[in-house]
């Protein structure tokens, strides 16, 4: 198989994710953009594994690590967002609170 597909997919996902992270005012929706950027990185890692150019199954193992770190990141980020909601009553990134 050609590696053109994975590379184009990774670039498009990162572009969409950057747009999503920059254009959202709701803090939870901004996280969705970040998830898409991480998805693009995952595609690249897995494509190196598919190319067989990684040592010690690095492509596969590192993509598992990225997924784990994404889970930890989302847990902390959502705790922070809930804390902000408790203090300000909203999670609008442009808002000045109530």
């Amino acid at each position, binding site marked *: 198989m050609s590696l053109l597909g994975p590379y184009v997919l990774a670039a498009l996902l990162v572009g969409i994710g950057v747009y999503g992270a920059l254009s959202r005012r709701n803090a*939870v929706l901004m996280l969705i953009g970040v998830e898409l950027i991480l998805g693009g990185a995952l595609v690249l890692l897995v494509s190196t*594994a598919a190319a067989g150019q990684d040592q010690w199954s690095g492509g596969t193992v590192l993509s598992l690590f990225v997924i784990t770190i994404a889970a930890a990141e*989302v847990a*902390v980020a959502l705790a922070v967002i809930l804390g902000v909601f408790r203090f300000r009553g909203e999670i609008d990134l442009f808002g000045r609170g109530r």
Partner: protein
Amino acid sequence: MTGLDLAFATFGLIAVVCGLLAVTTTRVVHAALWLVVSLGALAGCFLVMGAEFVALVQVLIYVGAIVVLVLFALMLTRSPIAAQTEVSVGPRRRVLAAVLGAASAALLLAVLVPVVAVLPERTVTSTEVMARDLFGVWVWPFELLSVLLLSALVAAFAVSRMDRPSEDTAPAHASSTDAPLLGEAEA
């Protein structure tokens, strides 16, 4: 174009279109649900590339855990179900964001497309080989990762239990989402 390329293109197209819908829809819950479809299609891409374990972990952790967390956060922050325009920035900033997104995609394409290789055959890393490497070569990063997960868990718990510094009254209310009503006056 082989069958694998065709399958990858199909899954990739679904992932990109649903990702676009997830970042542009005006209904907050729909955004999370489009993200489910996008990440599920991404798992399909991983399956086509021969990383079946990563695909399964993607479905379990991303679709099963992360999106459920996001949905919970949307519910706990009382996000409205109806369509509303103020979840996104104004049109001028949106255009700016689109330009930046397109620029980063173009930058990545410019770097990656010249090094495209056509593989005679994809390399499938079997789960057995991957497990031997994970618990052999990668065992210390793996252990470090479990410490990271534990500290993230503790930090998330600590942050969600944190009180406003000035108010020491009624810490029991701090864990409910009604807490901002308490300290509204001095905010």
